[in-house]
């Protein structure tokens, strides 16, 4: 569990990142791989959390790091490598989210012979131990959170994910999304308002 608002970017930044980048720019594949490993857990987690699909998260991972590999020579150290990488990653994720916007968000409500039933209400049966009531509450909440996140626009969802879960500053997020800090602030606020409205009965 994280405490939002206080977490800083959860990244294992290597000691000599600039050295690694320069070596990778000169074609050192080993250096490139070490650079990837410094960031790839965070990239995969963001893609997974934003897209909720291991297949798509895998695609984002490949697409993003290949793009980095092919364009690393253009990186001129005028922003942090992290910002540069996340700009690539978030844009690819946004593309995926927009492309799929037409598709309907997965619902937990399933049709049964007894009429519609919420799968979330039956999840506690899978929990092996602990307070069953608490388990059920948690399962229900995390399911509702996923559905609430699904109601945000791709941009709101991305800003929320990066600020709340990745702990990035709104200024950096604005930079990654090619917009202003002010716009990122408004976007985060809209996202929290929408989320709170759809989680109202649980809070």
């Amino acid at each position: 569990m994280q405490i939002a608002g206080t977490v800083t970017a959860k990244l294992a930044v290597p000691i000599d990142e600039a050295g690694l980048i320069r070596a990778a720019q000169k074609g050192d594949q080993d250096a490139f791989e070490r650079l990837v490993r410094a960031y790839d857990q965070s990239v995969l987690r963001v893609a997974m959390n934003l897209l909720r699909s291991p297949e798509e998260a895998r695609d984002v991972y490949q697409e993003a790091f290949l793009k980095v590999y092919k364009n690393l020579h253009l990186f001129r150290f005028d922003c942090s490598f992290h910002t540069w990488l996340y700009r690539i990653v978030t844009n690819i994720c946004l593309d995926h989210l927009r492309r799929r916007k037409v598709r309907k968000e997965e619902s937990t409500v399933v049709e049964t012979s007894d009429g519609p039933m919420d799968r979330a209400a039956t999840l506690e049966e899978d929990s092996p131990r602990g307070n069953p009531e608490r388990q059920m509450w948690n399962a229900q909440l995390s399911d509702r959170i996923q559905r609430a996140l699904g109601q945000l626009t791709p941009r709101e969802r991305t800003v929320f994910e990066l600020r709340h879960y990745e702990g990035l500053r709104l200024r950096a997020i604005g930079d990654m999304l090619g917009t202003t800090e002010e716009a990122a602030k408004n976007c985060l606020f809209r996202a929290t308002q929408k989320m709170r409205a759809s989680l109202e009965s649980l809070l």
Partner: protein
Amino acid sequence: MSVSGYAENAGQFGKSVMNCSDFAQDIALYCYGELTGEAEERLEDHLAGCQVCREELDHQKLFMDAMNDRPEELDFGVLAECRQTLRAQVATTRPWSWNNWFRNVQIPVGAMALVALGWLGAHYTPERFGGVRAGLGTPPLFSSVRSVEPDASGRIQISVDDVTRRVVSGDPNDPHIQALLLTAVREESNPGIRVESIGILQSRAGTEEVRRALLDAVSHDPNSAVRLKALQGLKTYSASADVRQTLASVLLKDDDPNVRVQAIDLLTAHRDDALVGVLQQIVEKEDNAYVQSRCMKTLQAMRASVGTY
């Protein structure tokens, strides 16, 4: 936990009056530590005297805690697979490197330029290459399906557009080769090919068409390596009015500092008193130290004031 329905508990700050509803966004940003010092102080003052907003703050915190209940998900199996796939892909992909294109682009003028371009089939027919050797490659490079229709007998009719590759070779001064290179500069999606084409064309920047293509590339190409290469091509023409106008607009608009550094060098190579206004604007908005100091020095040399005040 409705956010609307605030009591009209107004606070007075300077000339502006803020209501509780005006603080809603500040409260959310406050919880994320994203308020400026001034806004934070203003909010805390208000919170001290407003029960409604204190409750709103509690709701926001409750919401944020609840959001943290999402399980951390990182499947290390998936991560390992991703790393393996990437390693395999990197091993077969050549990174685009400046060294590579410097080696490739230094083609002596007069030598044969060999250009293999995937889009040739779509743009040119063999008849248009009178004096140029043109061979038709057999297998299609790209096929795109235009339509799919079942016919009455149950067979399927698919209409396919094929794009084939041909190799055209000729002297760089050959007008056909130049026409192809110009098309490549404007239409080719691979920036590497755009850079190479500009590299070959730049010796001919004196001709109207080439010069217009280079100016367009400087102003509009999305890839900064291409914009840089096109700037190099215009170097010898940095005294002419249309080039200078483009350079000024690059300095004000281009988001790549390397491109702006090139542009300021070219622009300030000639003394030009008409530039004072533009240089003053650049000094104000430029965040690259080199570009800024170059502008200031030029302004000082012209005995113009550095600011626009």
